[in-house]
């Protein structure tokens, strides 16, 4: 079975966290759980651990579990995202006191599942890891006290998730039947042209549907805005970011099967194009900030497709880099949303009015986040988009690049309205949420904004890592 614990330190560390949280959640209900006091520290330590073990490489469990640059890249990203999401969730006004340990346990469990997902190189393993990360989210989403929409969001997420899972499993059986293997490395050697094996192509398409569901790619995006809206701000911050990383890592692995010009690749490109256009147009009409971010993530899922269909190491690296960029930008946006809505309400655009006066640091960070999501320099959003289009140009999908460019122009309007409300609307409406301007809130926003800017100006180190991961895959 060639299991070597030294190679999977980040996963083991995360698992220990889950266990610790599990034990705490079993404790006497009268016992006041101080989970917020120790968990952020350990989540930060987890990030550190994942960085230290970035060089781990090897294959385990009969080849279904692989440690390579790609998996380590995503593990670092997931650990970092988990750290920020935990920090963000430590002040959660809409979570009942006795459920706090359980809440964090499921959060950690989902992150653990995503870590496993990033190393899974066999379809069944991918499926299991995906389910592990999803089931925890089914529990997390309805955990919002006194809000009926949370239950609705939870049900929506479960129902859509169940359908996507069923499709994926069904597709898996087709792939297995047609290609006689479920190992990605072996599948990469097979033909994925419609003419050669239609059943395998259908199977893979259905399997991909499961990933598209996580990624909220059209037409599997319906849950996204509703769930963001229904879940608490802090939960939405997690759901909107980390599961996307999980989906992207699997898609990057599966993209080694996709060569430009194949029917399935072209389908992906079309889904990407529709997704970005549809997401952006729907976002234009929204007033609820979380719904805006929800539709924006539908659009961003479309952008990532550019890297996947390019069929080169650069393309895969660009997709990986962009998903990381997306997670950071979104964590920043959600951090601000959570802190501005300090009472846990759903933030409307009008609630942002005059934010520059009430909380200048949060307003500035929101501006950085919004401009990064648009893709304006000098942010990581720009450089990520730039890598994507450079990778995709001249590989048969120039039209998709132009679609992305045109879409960026559409997207401006709604991202700009975030900045516009924060900076130019002077009249603060009565009953607007009072933003949390504590040191914790300001420093967190400032650090995330700094990361967005610094990674935009100096992307090289991270991008080299992503490139190494991409080249490793195509070797």
């Amino acid at each position, binding site marked *: 079975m060639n299991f070597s614990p030294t190679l999977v330190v980040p996963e083991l560390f995360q698992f220990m966290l889950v266990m610790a949280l599990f034990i705490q959640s079993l404790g006497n209900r009268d016992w006041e759980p101080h989970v917020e006091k120790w968990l952020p520290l350990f989540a930060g330590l987890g990030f550190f651990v994942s960085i230290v073990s970035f060089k781990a490489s090897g294959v385990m469990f009969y080849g279904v579990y692989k440690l390579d640059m790609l998996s380590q890249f995503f593990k670092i990203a997931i650990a970092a995202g988990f750290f920020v999401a935990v920090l963000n969730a430590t002040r959660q006004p809409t979570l009942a006191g006795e459920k706090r340990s359980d809440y964090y346990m499921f959060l950690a469990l989902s992150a653990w599942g995503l870590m496993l997902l990033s190393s899974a190189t066999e379809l069944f393993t991918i499926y299991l890891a995906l389910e592990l990360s999803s089931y925890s989210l089914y529990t997390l989403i309805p955990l919002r006290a006194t809000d009926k929409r949370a239950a609705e969001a939870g049900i929506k997420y479960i129902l859509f998730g169940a359908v996507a899972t069923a499709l994926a499993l069904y597709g898996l059986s087709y792939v297995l039947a047609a290609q006689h293997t479920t190992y990605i490395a072996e599948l990469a050697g097979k033909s994925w042209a419609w003419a050669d094996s239609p059943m395998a192509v259908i199977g893979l398409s259905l399997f991909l549907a499961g990933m598209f569901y996580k990624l909220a790619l059209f037409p599997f995006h319906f849950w996204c805005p509703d769930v963001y809206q229904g879940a608490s701000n802090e939960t939405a911050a997690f759901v909107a970011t980390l599961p996307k990383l999980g989906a992207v890592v699997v898609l990057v692995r599966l993209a080694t099967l996709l060569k430009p010009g194949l029917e399935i690749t072209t389908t992906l490109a079309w889904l990407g194009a529709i997704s970005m256009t549809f997401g952006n147009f729907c976002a234009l009409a929204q007033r609820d900030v979380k719904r805006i971010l929800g539709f924006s993530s539908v659009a961003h899922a479309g952008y990532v497709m550019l890297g996947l269909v390019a069929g080169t190491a650069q393309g895969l690296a660009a997709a990986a880099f962009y998903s990381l960029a997306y997670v950071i930008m979104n964590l920043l946006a959600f951090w601000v949303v959570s802190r501005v809505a300090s009472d846990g309400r759903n933030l409307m655009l009008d609630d942002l009015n005059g934010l520059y006066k009430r909380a200048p640091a949060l307003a500035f960070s929101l501006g950085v986040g919004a401009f990064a999501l648009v893709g304006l320099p000098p942010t990581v959003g*720009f450089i990520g988009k730039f890598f994507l*289009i450079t990778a995709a140009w001249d590989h048969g999908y120039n039209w998709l690049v132009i679609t992305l460019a045109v879409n960026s122009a559409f997207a*401006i309007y709604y991202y700009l309205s975030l900045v*516009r409300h924060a*900076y130019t609307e002077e009249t603060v409406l009565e009953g607007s949420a009072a933003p949390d301007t504590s040191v914790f809130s300001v420093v967190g926003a400032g650090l995330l904004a700094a990361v967005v800017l610094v990674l935009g100006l100096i992307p*090289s180190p991270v991008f080299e890592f992503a490139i190494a991961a991409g080249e490793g895959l195509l070797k």
Partner: protein
Amino acid sequence: MDYGYPVLSSLVVFPLLAAAGLFIIRGETVVRGYTLAASIFEIILAIPLANYTFNADFQFVERISWVSRWGLEYHLAVDGISILMIWLTLFTLPLCVLCSWTYISKRIKEFHFCLLFMTAACVGVFTAMDLVLFYVFWEAMLIPMYLLIAVWGGDDRKYASIKFFLYTLAGSTLLLVAIVAFRIEGGTFSIPALMQQTFSFRFQFWCFLAMALAFAIKVPMFPFHTWLPAAHVQAPSAGSVILAAILLKMGTYGFLRFCLPLTPAASEYFAPMMIAISIASILYGGAVALGQSDIKKLIAYSSVGHMGFVTLGIFLFNQRGVEGALFQMLNHGIVTGGLFMMIGTVYERSHSRDIGKNLGLGKYMPAFMFFWGLYSLASFGFPGTNGFVGEALVFIGAFQHSLLVGFLIVPGALLAAAYMFRVGLKLAWGEPSSAKSWRDLRSREWIYLLIPAVLVFYIGLAPGVFLKMIDPSIEKLLADYHSRKQVAQVQTEQPMQTAARELMNGIVEAKN
């Protein structure tokens, strides 16, 4: 040459550092004084640029690898096409601070932050020698400009600022695609390196269109100009000054820096269209300006006309035309910038930009009227002023190009005189309603109106210095353009010629 510090980088970085420094100081006057000092220090930092040698080389080159994997470089340099624009940018900043001294009364720190950030981005645009770096600066400048209009603008500022942002960003997204296409086709992002290459006509065709859209919106050329009057009217004085003096120049600079050298054959192909649009801009801008009752709107529309002269000059592809274009870029910056500052001056007194509410200033504000008259003369190209030199050069170029083009733009020059006289007459000799109580220019206003006025005469009477500075670069640009245009044409003609030869051979063989 070593100046002890990287000159161009310091011009980009210093305003950013100064902007960051704003966060730690307090007090309205302190903030204003600090920004003014910073803007003067910025000019001091640029003193080594005076050692610019009058040849066509790229000078003050700074080159560092940025993202090596993708061949991105932090590459700055200046040549004759950019150096005047940099000086213009640097001198505009202190004037903007001065003309906002009493005009801007809220969120002063943020306002000056935007001004400094803007300056850094503008210098970056004019010095970047890497396509992506250029794009970074080009886009980064949108944010402070958006805020300048949206926060400190007039009543309709939200509409104007969003329109400005949407228009300019929509234009430049395709520019990014063209940039990537250049990299794939030419193997580098370096502008000097790409200038050495010849691309196929088909490739040039699409890249030209993508780039020209971005630049035409920025200039703005008719019919992409609709954001400009709205933005100008709503922006505060300093915003209008920057918009007119620097931002519009970026579009024409883009044509000179990218379209002509990188896509010469396509530029040649599209030249008739560009010339036609330029003429339309000149006539349309002038005609609409004539009908305005809002002074600011009038000057905004006059900008459309003036910038039409610039684009016309560029697409004539002769020495006089391009010289005139580059000259007009500088002149328009000085003169229109001056006029916008004057409008701010009068607005502070009357709180109206309506011509009818600012009548009869001649009697009570003679100094003001003197400057207004001076800038008006320069604006429509009166001999002795800088406007004359630029416009005359474009006229010469136009007549060299074709008699028809020359004659078509004559009404444009007349229209400019007509609308400037119309507004000047009313301001000077109209029946005053409330002007009596207004104070004539204060010393601060004297300073910021006198500096451009000196330049108006200096450039107007001694244009030689400036021509010497820009001429070698223009000569090289045009020589490169004409030689490479032909190379590209030969390349595109080859398949046709081969086909023709084969056909002829076939006919000859058939006869035998």
